[in-house]
């Protein structure tokens, strides 16, 4: 059973089509990397897969469950790392993670373990608004994997991270995490290295969909022209 199966997925924003005609199938354990210029529909795709947006047409199955009908069965099995950290700025890293742990029914020890993994155990008592963007992004990574999701949805996961921090979160959201992943990226070389499959979007339509081995960096760069 594929982890993600899309058949003619479309999502409109008013009269404008934000996403249309997307069909693909992603096997469990594989990584799909989505390229495309800003506004091409990458984030929309992730939000549909995360059950935050309902599809307007086509069929969507995530972890075997059809959306939006069985969205409730998918929630809690996917982890979304969005552009915004989805964390409260007035709360500390620990408070934020504990809040999400309670919502997901995860043991609070896991919060401490994750704080160590993202090297924030020292600053976990300060409100997030006093932390740097990179640190907040590390907390957001911890939040996204808190409940050990089967499917990770990562929206430009390394955008605010320096190389050291990027390495730090690798065991959580990188290939080493051994989870099914859908990743959006603007970095052709790096993205391609992570991918098993590549989806190129242009104005909401798939312009490229192939196994990563058959795609060249130049082809991806072409999408942005």
């Amino acid at each position: 059973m594929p982890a993600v199966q899309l058949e003619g997925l479309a999502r409109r924003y008013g009269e404008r089509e934000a996403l249309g005609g997307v069909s693909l199938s992603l096997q469990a354990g594989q990584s799909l990397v989505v390229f495309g210029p800003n506004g091409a529909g990458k984030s929309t795709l992730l939000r549909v897969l995360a059950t935050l947006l309902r599809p307007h047409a086509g069929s969507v199955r995530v972890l075997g469950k059809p959306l939006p009908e069985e969205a409730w069965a998918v929630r809690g099995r996917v982890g979304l790392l969005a552009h915004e950290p989805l964390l409260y700025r007035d709360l500390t890293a620990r408070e934020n993670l504990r809040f999400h742990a309670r919502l997901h029914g995860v043991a609070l020890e896991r919060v401490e373990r994750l704080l160590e993994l993202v090297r924030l155990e020292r600053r976990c008592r300060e409100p997030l608004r006093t932390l740097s963007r990179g640190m907040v992004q590390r907390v957001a990574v911890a939040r996204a994997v808190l409940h050990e999701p089967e499917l990770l949805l990562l929206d430009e996961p390394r955008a605010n991270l320096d190389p050291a921090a990027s390495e730090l979160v690798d065991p959580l959201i990188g290939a080493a995490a051994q989870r099914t992943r859908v990743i959006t990226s603007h970095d052709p070389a790096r993205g391609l290295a992570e991918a098993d499959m590549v989806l190129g979007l242009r104005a909401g339509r798939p312009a490229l969909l192939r196994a990563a081995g058959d795609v060249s960096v130049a082809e991806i760069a072409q999408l942005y022209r």
Partner: protein
Amino acid sequence: MHSSSPSSPAVGSGLRALSIAAAAVMAVALGLVFFYAPLDADQGFLQKIFYLHVPLAIVALCGFVAGGLMAIMYLRTREARWDMRSYVAIHMSLIFAVATLITGSIWARGSWGRWWAWNEPTLVSFLIVFLLYATYQPLRFAIEDPERQARYASVFAITAAAFVPMNFIAVRLSTAYLHPRVLGSTSNLPPRMAFTFVISLLAVALLYATLCSCELAAKRARAQLRTLRRLADARAGAGADAGGQSRRTRSETPPMPAAGTLAAPAPRGGL
């Protein structure tokens, strides 16, 4: 999904029949009001505003509640046409509510020498309901995403429709009922007055239905026009620039009304 083009001729003739019926019944009602219904012993000629004021009030309230029911249909089916109907019903009821307030105010001036009477619960309730519904359009047009707009407007419409009866009960409880009048009940009216009232109510209801149909037809036509224009654009630009045009693909959602439709004809009255 929904396509409005095949139904348009039927809409046209239905609208014409409705308009004619509304005009005819309105003429009959006016005739009855002035030549058939007896003069009221206490209030004299002024009492004739009753045949306009009360039907306006009843129709406006029913329209508000109907808007709420259509909003329930929208939330169940997610079909944009239900949201559009709910919008038009509430919009038209708002206009009728303004007319109710004005006619009520005139009546109050004539009967008690004041333009406003706080001890008249129906009028006071109307003002509160009107103030609530007056925020419907600002709420609607403060939301960008058309789908969220429809959803939030529906939640508002249902809440407000439920508020209407609760508000009437609360206001009525609060008012010392000083001026027992014919309002709302036709049972204690002389038969000629009651008959005139029923025909007036029918006339105002038909007027409401006609105006709503007009607005709906106009919105539908505008949506069709926009779709056609987009198609034409797409065809014209197809050869020249395929990439640029694929952004503007056809969509099946009828676009929601823009502001500025408030200039609909005001309800005609008998004075």
